[in-house]
């Protein structure tokens, strides 16, 4: 008993000491943070790192809901214009005050970035109204602009001018390195101390941060360790406190190690199988004798439904993903604007029904096809593709898996798209269900900015019409009705066979408590180290 009390007291003492003292956090990930210029990349890892230094105009809570950040309020005032009220008393890391001019400058800088065209390409003007008000005018109505603004990063105009980085550093330009690549001037919770992409990025807590800092981290270092086993070894040997890309096969080992804990959250991305909805003849698709099929089987909704009933997403999540995945049953996921929990029901796995549907569609013996499969970028795609192929074989659809390295796969899509059946990850940029439809489900028409990522050319005119209505509707109740209608239709027509959201998994040593967020950002201001 006495021993317990003593230990408790010691722990409490250690805790208070930890709160008061300088705490350092060393965390490691698989990929390097490329640049500190927040407008010069949309890379997932890099964004999670520069988010420490740069605040977004609108913030994100730990469960990915919008929260006031540098903008305290936002209202639609008509004429395609959103009005943002800028927080007062915010300081940049050099001590200068944040102004409405800085906000307008940053918006105009980021909207011109090649990497943010799909999010901010519609913005025409950011107008300073008064010291605390900025109006943003878009080319057309944009009801989900606030959600997009959680990815609008604000930097100091004076600093950009002084260091010749008013324009985003241009690729292919000759000459010296732009100042913003390894230096930063934001208002974020951490100040950048140094950035060496090949080795480490170091931060220091910013004492004059405008928001609360619930954690106790005073300095932090992000290390890039590409090799999975080495990353895990560095965690288990105590060289790093935390690992943000824990390899799937090592999760058990870290959990079993005394004192170590893991945290997991579903990624803001889901895997799905996409099927050709437009071509008269599907590519690389044959009957059992090896002759090209007269019709494109994937264009028949019954065939799509049959595939949805055959591919068992639960089994893939359990086995291939070792339980580190959340099964998805609609074209939206929790944390997205417009997500409907009751509509998120995966198709039942029912092979008899699938065979019936195939027979009705005129393929009682099935057919032979090729599935293009990206080998990198997403987790365990190789195994997922092989599992899908063996499941489809049970209803007579013979699938040859065509594995491709990512650059090759990407080239096939952007220069074509030349695929009638493939696996891909879908992660609508703005994190609103509307974007699922405008980007991924609408009939592909890049010139009208519709269906830009609809690589399998799914096409249903009634869904296109409803989506167009949604993009100009501001009334919340009406929007809700449209979201439900669209999600129901997409699922019924099987725009794609939804599979799962892979989990982000972090491993931590005992005494480190970092709340996980679905965009994979370690919010350093919330981390407690003992």
């Amino acid at each position, binding site marked *: 008993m006495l021993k317990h009390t003593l230990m408790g007291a010691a722990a409490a003492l250690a805790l208070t000491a930890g709160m008061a003292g300088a705490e350092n956090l060393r965390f490691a990930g698989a990929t390097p943070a490329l640049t500190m210029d927040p407008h010069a990349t949309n890379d997932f890892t890099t964004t999670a790192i520069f988010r420490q230094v740069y605040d977004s105009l609108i913030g994100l809570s730990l469960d990915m809901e919008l929260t006031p950040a540098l903008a305290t309020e936002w209202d639609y005032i008509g004429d395609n214009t959103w009005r943002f009220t800028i927080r007062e008393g915010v300081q940049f890391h050099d001590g200068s005050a944040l102004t409405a001019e800085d906000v307008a400058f940053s918006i105009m800088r980021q909207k011109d970035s090649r990497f943010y065209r799909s999010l901010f390409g519609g913005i025409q003007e950011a107008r300073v109204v008064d010291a605390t008000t900025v109006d943003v005018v878009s080319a057309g109505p944009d009801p989900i602009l606030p959600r997009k603004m959680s990815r609008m990063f604000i930097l100091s105009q004076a600093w950009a001018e002084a260091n010749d980085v008013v324009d985003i550093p241009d690729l292919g330009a000759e000459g010296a390195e732009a100042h913003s690549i390894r230096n930063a001037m934001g208002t974020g919770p951490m100040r950048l101390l140094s950035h060496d992409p090949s080795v480490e990025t170091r931060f220091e807590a910013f004492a004059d941060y405008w928001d609360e800092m619930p954690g106790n981290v005073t300095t932090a270092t992000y290390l890039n360790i590409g090799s999975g086993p080495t990353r895990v070894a*560095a965690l288990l040997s105590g060289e790093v406190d935390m690992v943000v890309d824990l390899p799937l096969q090592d999760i058990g080992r870290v959990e079993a190690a005394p004192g170590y804990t893991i945290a997991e959250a579903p990624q803001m991305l889901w895997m799905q199988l996409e099927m050709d909805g437009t071509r008269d003849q599907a590519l690389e698709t044959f009957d059992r004798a090896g002759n090209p099929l007269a019709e494109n089987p994937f264009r028949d909704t019954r065939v799509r439904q049959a595939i949805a009933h055959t591919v068992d997403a639960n089994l893939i999540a359990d086995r291939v993903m070792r339980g580190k995945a959340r099964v998805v049953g609609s074209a939206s996921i929790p944390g997205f604007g417009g997500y409907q929990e009751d509509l998120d029901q995966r198709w039942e796995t029912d092979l008899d029904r699938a065979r019936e549907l195939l027979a009705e569609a005129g393929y009682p013996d099935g057919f032979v096809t090729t599935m293009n499969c990206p080998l990198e970028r997403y987790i365990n795609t190789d195994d997922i593709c092989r599992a899908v192929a063996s499941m489809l074989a049970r209803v007579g659809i013979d699938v040859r898996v065509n594995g491709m390295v990512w650059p090759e796969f*990407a080239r096939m899509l952007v220069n074509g798209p030349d695929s009638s059946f493939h696996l891909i990850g879908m992660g609508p940029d703005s994190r609103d269900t509307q974007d699922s439809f405008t980007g991924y489900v609408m009939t592909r028409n890049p010139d009208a900015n519709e269906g830009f990522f609809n690589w399998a050319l799914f096409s249903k005119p009634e869904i296109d019409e409803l989506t167009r209505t949604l993009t100009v509707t501001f009334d919340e109740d009406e929007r809700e009705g449209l979201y439900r209608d669209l999600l129901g239709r997409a699922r019924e027509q099987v725009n794609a066979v939804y599979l799962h959201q892979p989990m982000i998994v972090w491993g931590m040593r005992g005494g480190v408590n970092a709340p996980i967020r679905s965009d994979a950002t370690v919010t350093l201001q919330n981390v407690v180290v003992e």
Partner: protein
Amino acid sequence: MIALIAQRIAQAIVVLFVVSVLAFLLSTQIGDPVASILGLQATPEDRLELRAALGLDDPWPTRYLEFVTNVLRGELGVSYITQRPVSELIVERLPATFELAGVALLFSLGVGLPIGIYAAINRGRWSADAILSLSVIGVSVPTFVIAILLIFLFSVTLGWLPSFGRGQVVQVGWWTTGLLTPSGLKALIMPAAALAVSQVALVARLVRAEMIEVLRADYIRFARARGLKPRVIHLSLALRNTLIPVITVSGIQLGFLFAFAVVAEAVFQWPGIGLLFLQALGSTDVPIISAILLLTAAFFVAINTIVDLLYAVVDPRLRAGGLNGRPAGA
């Protein structure tokens, strides 16, 4: 002699030219840099604009010519992904790889030489055969397996050595060195050892073969007849003559260690040229890929040329051999 030097240098230039064409063609075949840079998001106009900005639309001979003229002017371009000058990145990474390869060479000589000498002196005994066979295991086990085993033993279980990185480095001019700090030295041990293991057997076998040859020579027999101690005969007379070919091979070996450091660098997150190359491959960063291929080729060609010329200095018969480089009458 001058004709020979000119001939060797001309050969080196031809080899470099061929490699530069290959490196260039390869880098145009490994995927679409625009798709890698912009991801799937960008609009077709953005893609076309970037292609034009990067000069990807020009026919390849034009691009190659531009590439070569830039290289000759010392400009290696700007990395697509990190947006930093490639020459700067390479200069930053070069010391790490050189120190790794150099120390690995010392390790392989330090272990391989004694094994080779022992095996030569005790030829035919089972202990010599056993040690020699053991060293062959080093060649057969892949470097990354050895590396991971080392990490689990010395980092995770014993906690003696760091599992990744270079430790603390000291800047000496433009060169960063890990050889002057305790943490830098500790960080160097495992990567260098993992890299050296595959070379130990090579060194041992070479030393053994050369030494056996030398021990048969007349002057060794006379030395024995004079009653010199075996130790003196082996270590000061025989070894000295054994070392000449070993030193030559070591030069070439350094080139191999430099090029094959890739695996050790990837496992130990060693911030050298190999790791830079791997990262560039993964993101289709063409300027880095071409520059490193060219650099590695230049390194090999330089070493081979120097070795060839040194042979000529040492062996006058090679000089008389003229353009075909063979000894006269051979």
